[in-house]
C-alpha cells in the first residue's frame, strides 16, 4: 500500500473524531454488503461476500470421517483461511502465511468454542452419524481475493452464508454392523439436509482510532489504528469469542464499552446479513 502523508493521516483521524469518515460513512455504519451463494458448485456450500473492495470466498466441504477419541459423539470442523497474492503483492509465496494463521485461529475461536467443544456456534453433535465410528468432517476454507480492511468480519459473514448454503447429504447406516468393524454407510445422492445456522455468530471488529471506535475499517483507516477488538456475537446477543489485535493497551472500561457497542451493531448486521443471504439464495434458485 502506498504510504499516507501527514495531511492524509490527520484527515482520517479528524474525520473519525467528527463522525464523518473519508467515504462519508458514520463511525458505526457498514459498507454495502453483497452476498452471492453457490459460487463453487463442487463444494457442499459456498458463498462470496463483498464489503466495498474487500472480496472473500468461503467454501464448505463435508466428508465422512472418524470422530476424535475424546469426543466420540461429535463431528469435526476445521477452518482454514488462505490469503491469495491477488489481494496484496506481499502475500506472494509464504508472505501471507502469518495473516492466514491469524485469521484462521481468530475464526476458530469465534465459531468453534472451547476445547471441550462447548458453546460452539455450530452444533457438533448434529454431525455425528455413528457414535465413535463415523461422523461428518466439515472443512471450511476461506480465500481472500481482494483486501481493503475488515477481513475478519467479511470472512465471518462469508462462512455464515456458506453454511446456510450447505446441504449435507442424508446418510443411512447399515443396521446390522457388529461392534468393532466399520459400519457401512450409504450416502444419499438425492436427499439433503440444510445446515442449521441460527446459532452461527457474526464477527464485529471495532477499530480504535484516536479516542473513537469505528466499525468496518478500510485498509487506510486500519493503518491509523491503535488497537482493534473483534467480538463475535450471536443472534441471542451473546458473546461467542473475543480477539484483540494491535499493540496499544486498552483500559478495561473501554473494552466493556466496545463490547456493548458491538452487541448493538450486531443486531443490524445480523438482520442485514440474513436478508442478503436469503436474497442470494433466491437468486441462485432462479
Amino acid at each position: 500500500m502506498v504510504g499516507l502523508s501527514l495531511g492524509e493521516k490527520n484527515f482520517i483521524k479528524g474525520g473519525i473524531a467528527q463522525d464523518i469518515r473519508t467515504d462519508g460513512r458514520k463511525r458505526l455504519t457498514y459498507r454495502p454488503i453483497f452476498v452471492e451463494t453457490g459460487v463453487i458448485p463442487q463444494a457442499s456450500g459456498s458463498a462470496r461476500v463483498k464489503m466495498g473492495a474487500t472480496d472473500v470466498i468461503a467454501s464448505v466441504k463435508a466428508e465422512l470421517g472418524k470422530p476424535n477419541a475424546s469426543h466420540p459423539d461429535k463431528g469435526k470442523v476445521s477452518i482454514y483461511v488462505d490469503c491469495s497474492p491477488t489481494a496484496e503483492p506481499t502475500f506472494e509465496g509464504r508472505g501471507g502465511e502469518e495473516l492466514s494463521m491469524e485469521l484462521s485461529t481468530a475464526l476458530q475461536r469465534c465459531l468453534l468454542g472451547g476445547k471441550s467443544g462447548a458453546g460452539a456456534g455450530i452444533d457438533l453433535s448434529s454431525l455425528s452419524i455413528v457414535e465413535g465410528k463415523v461422523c461428518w468432517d466439515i472443512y471450511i476454507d476461506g480465500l481472500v481475493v481482494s483486501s481493503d480492511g475488515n477481513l475478519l468480519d467479511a470472512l465471518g459473514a462469508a462462512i455464515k452464508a456458506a453454511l446456510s448454503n450447505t446441504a449435507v447429504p442424508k446418510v443411512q447406516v447399515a443396521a446390522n454392523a457388529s461392534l468393532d468393524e466399520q459400519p457401512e454407510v450409504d450416502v444419499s445422492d438425492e436427499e439433503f439436509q440444510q445446515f442449521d445456522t441460527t446459532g452461527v455468530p457474526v464477527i464485529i471488529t471495532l477499530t480504535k482510532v484516536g479516542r473513537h471506535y469505528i466499525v468496518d475499517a478500510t485498509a487506510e483507516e486500519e493503518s491509523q489504528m491503535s488497537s482493534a477488538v473483534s467480538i463475535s456475537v450471536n443472534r441471542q446477543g451473546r458473546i461467542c469469542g473475543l480477539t484483540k489485535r494491535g499493540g496499544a493497551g486498552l483500559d478495561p472500561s473501554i473494552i466493556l464499552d466496545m463490547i456493548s457497542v458491538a452487541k448493538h451493531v450486531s443486531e443490524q448486521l445480523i438482520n442485514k446479513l440474513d436478508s442478503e443471504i436469503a436474497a442470494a439464495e433466491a437468486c441462485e434458485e432462479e
Partner: protein
Amino acid sequence: MEFVSPEGLRLDGRRPTEMRQLRAEVGVVAKADGSASFEMGNTKVIAAVYGPREVQNKGQQMNDQALVRCEYSMANFSTGDRMRKPKGDRRSTEISLVIRQTMEACILTHLMPRSQIDIFVQVLQADGGTRSACINAATLALADAGIPMRDLVTSCSSGYLNSTPLLDLNYVEDSAGGPDVTVGILPKLDKVTLLQMDAKLPIDIFENVMQLAIEGCKAVANYIREILLENTKQLEFRRGV
C-alpha cells in the same frame, strides 16, 4: 471408456471441435493495477497485475528491462478432493514459470527498465485447461493495467481420444491418459509462443491436433478483443465522452 459417442458427442454434450463457454470480466480486484477473471466452462481463474512498480529485491533489478514475476496458486476448494497445499508444490511452480515466460515474451519490457511487473493468478475452480485459462486471464489483466504488449497472448488446449481430435479438454478428458497439447499464440502476429504436450502422438496426427488448438486460440482472441472493446466503451462512458 467412451469419450466420443457414436453420434459424435463428447461426455458433456459438445462436438469434438467445440470450445467450452467463455466468460470474462475485467477489473475484479479493485486494489490491483489490472485484474480480470476468466472462465472456460467450469474452470474459473482470477488474475491480478501489480506494476510496473519499484523492484522489491534490488539484486534482481535489470537496468535495461522490466522484471516480470508470476505466481500461480490454486484454492483449497478448487479441485474435487480438497487440496492440502495451495502453492509451492511442483506443479504450481512449473505453471508459474510457464506463464511467466509466455507473458514476458509479449510484454515490451524494454520500455520499463528497472521496474517490476507482478502477475498473480488464482484458480478458483479447476476443471481442465487451467494453464490456458490463466494465460488468457493474465492477458486481460495486463491490458487492464495498461502495460504495453506486442500482442494479446491467448491459449487453448486440445487432445486426441477415441481417434478424434478434441478441442478444449475438461478434467475428465484430460485425466483419460491421452495426449494433451497446450498452445499459446500471438494472434495478430500469428506466432506460437507456448507449446506443451504430454503422452505420445504420431507426427501427422499431432499436426492436426495442434492446428485445432491454434483455431481455438484464435476464437479466444476474438472473444478477448470483444471484452476489451466493451471495457473501453464503458471507460469512455464514465469519463463522459
